């Protein structure tokens, strides 16, 4: 195979990974050094928008890094599309786990896909930093889903968020009557459970009703009927923003004035956009987006990537940066990279200090409360 073909294949890094890696190794003497990190998440299929948003943030981080360290390193991104589906993850993960050229993974985006990928990454000693897999069991060393030592996340897990959401949703409501429902997904059902247990610690709050609604639902009238019967004054939904937008419109159109609250699945500026005026006053817990961190950064992002930042962009940037800093420090083997991440002590772009616990959880994991005002989710500060 001649050099030219090698190079052109390497450019299409995702497509020609196998050959590309060969090329990188044969031309090792040539500076700058090419290294690979991967992003894993849904890049096609029904959940693709989440993955695309996250991957864009990772790409942005790499772009900045490559521009800055042109002389030393050329970091390439391997896009690993698992469609957010554990079945697909089980097919792609063995290849990634085996491919020693990949030093670390940002992702997987979803907890189910993470669990399916774990055995292969554990076997390959491949470090993972997920921007959005929040399932508690992933960092619970007693659980079969436990991801240690390779799994890390820069996002707060569900059992931190659940109580925060419970608190924030019921703020200023005395003797709150709460209706909780989820979208049957592996994200929403456990979160609903942690919200329920979190509510026990909120004085006077009671759960007056629950429902579990398939995530393809658009007609929420039965749920709304239940809410009306239960006379709830707070409604908490633990699913995702698109469903939440459909629901909140129908809830308001039915004449209900109950407070609506959601978790980080709902935390997305698309939510007020989709729901319009009905979203006003909705309470959402999450961790601030890129624009919330710095408008300048957001503007640069948009200029560089051509699109606005989306969901989990801060987390994805942080995760990518941890790996990139590791590369800069010369941790160009998997073992070194894993050790680097485990010992990492640095700053998030939000200014918080990132450190991982022994089980891979982020040190802070604080959730901010957001309220929709004039069509935008506005940060009202950390929920305490």
């Amino acid at each position, binding site marked *: 195979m001649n050099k030219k073909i090698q190079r052109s294949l390497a450019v299409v890094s995702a497509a020609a990974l196998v050959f590309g890696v060969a090329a990188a190794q044969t031309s090792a003497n040539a500076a700058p050094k090419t290294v690979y990190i991967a992003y894993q998440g849904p*890049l096609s299929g029904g959940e693709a928008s989440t993955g695309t948003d996250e991957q864009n943030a990772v790409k942005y981080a790499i772009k900045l890094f490559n521009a800055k360290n042109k002389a030393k390193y050329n970091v390439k991104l391997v896009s690993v599309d698992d469609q957010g589906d554990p079945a697909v993850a*089980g*097919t792609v993960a063995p290849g990634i786990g085996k491919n020693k050229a990949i030093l670390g993974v940002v992702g997987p985006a979803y907890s189910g896909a993470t*669990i399916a990928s774990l055995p292969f990454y554990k076997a390959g000693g491949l470090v993972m930093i997920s921007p959005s897999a929040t399932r508690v*069991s992933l960092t619970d060393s007693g*659980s*079969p*889903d436990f991801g240690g030592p390779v799994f890390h996340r820069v996002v707060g897990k569900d059992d931190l968020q659940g109580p925060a959401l419970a608190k924030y949703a019921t703020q200023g409501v005395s003797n709150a009557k709460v209706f909780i429902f989820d979208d049957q997904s592996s994200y929403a059902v*456990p979160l609903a459970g942690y919200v329920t247990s979190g509510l026990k610690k909120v004085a006077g709050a009671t759960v007056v009703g629950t429902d579990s609604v398939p995530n393809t639902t658009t007609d929420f009238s039965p749920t709304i009927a239940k809410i009306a019967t239960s006379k709830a004054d707070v409604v908490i939904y633990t699913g995702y923003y698109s469903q939440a937008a459909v629901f909140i419109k129908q809830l308001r159109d039915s004449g209900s004035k109950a407070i609506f609250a959601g978790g980080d699945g709902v935390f997305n500026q698309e939510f007020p956009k989709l729901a319009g005026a009905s979203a006003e006053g909705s309470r959402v817990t999450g961790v601030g987006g890129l624009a919330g961190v710095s408008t300048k950064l957001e503007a640069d992002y948009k200029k560089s990537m051509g699109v606005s930042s989306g969901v989990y962009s801060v987390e994805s940037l942080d995760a990518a940066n941890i790996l990139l800093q590791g590369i800069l420090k010369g941790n160009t083997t998997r073992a070194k990279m894993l050790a680097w991440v485990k010992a990492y002590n640095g700053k998030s772009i939000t200014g918080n200090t990132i450190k991982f616990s022994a089980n891979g959880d982020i040190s802070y994991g604080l959730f901010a409360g957001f309220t929709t005002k004039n069509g935008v989710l506005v940060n009202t500060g950390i929920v305490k």
Partner: protein
Amino acid sequence: MKIRNYWNLRDYGANIWENAGRPVRVAIVLVSIVLVGLLPFTGGSFLATPIASFDAVLVYPVGMFVLMSLGLNIVVGKSGMLDLGYVAFFAIGAYTMAILGTTTKLNTWEIMPIGIAFAMIAGVLLGIPTLRLRGDYLAIVTLGFGEIVRLVVLNSTWSKGPNGIANIPMPPHIGPLKFELENQRVFFWVVMAMILLTIWMIRRLSVRRPGRAWEAIRQDEDAAELMGVPTLKYKIWSFTLGAAVGGAAGVLYASKNLYIAPEMFTLNVSILILACVVFGGIGNIWGVVIGATVLGYLPDRIRFISDARLLVFGLVLVIVMNFRPDGLLPRKKREKAIVKREANA
């Protein structure tokens, strides 16, 4: 039509086969098995799949699809019943493995017969009330069954609901062959063995009473019943055998993927498997094998057009069906071979 014969692989293959003596046939079979068995070692060639590792792709989707398509082919191809809920049996097998594998000391091979039995029982239970229905009505009822199985698993606590079940044990080694995470070639060989077993089963049944009964049912169910074929009984058998293969595939899959969740068992799987059957050539074992191989392999091979992958998949389905409606390798037409043989004699 005449031109087609030159590149008609089926007739070409059938010719060699028909004219071969027993030793040659045995040799052909053995050589083919060995060649296919060597596939996991060709990962470095043009066959390689980007991102996903080749040996993993050979196990799932390719091998599993072939196995399940052969199972579904008993139902759809042999006896002509449109089953859109085949994934249910796959799910039952997988959950049997997952639950027993994580809660008892039984290993994969010990759970295999249990998983198959559960799938078969489900097949009978579903078959008795519904197989009186025909055509599209049967299609929608089976489709509903597939969804019900998924939803029950999703909404129940014994199955850990949407969280799924992790840490499913891998199969224990078979003699010197060890199952490894990093290299899945032993899984591939096991799938291959299961495929061969299924093919053996289908071929054996096809030329005997059950095969004739299914064939009669497929072509004219009323005539079959009036000629004394107990149609309901044979339809249930067909359904149950298909279920058994699906259940077996499910057990092995759970033991290979190590983690299963309800979201893996959606209607899409049923439709994809059905597409494999029809795409390759409904009713013809080799057609089904080729169809499932192509449709299982293609999406992973063409990852470079990453985002438009499914779009291309859809287009391929439309185009192939339009130009080869009986599939890539249609049901064999024995008469042709017979007439040819007579002409030669």
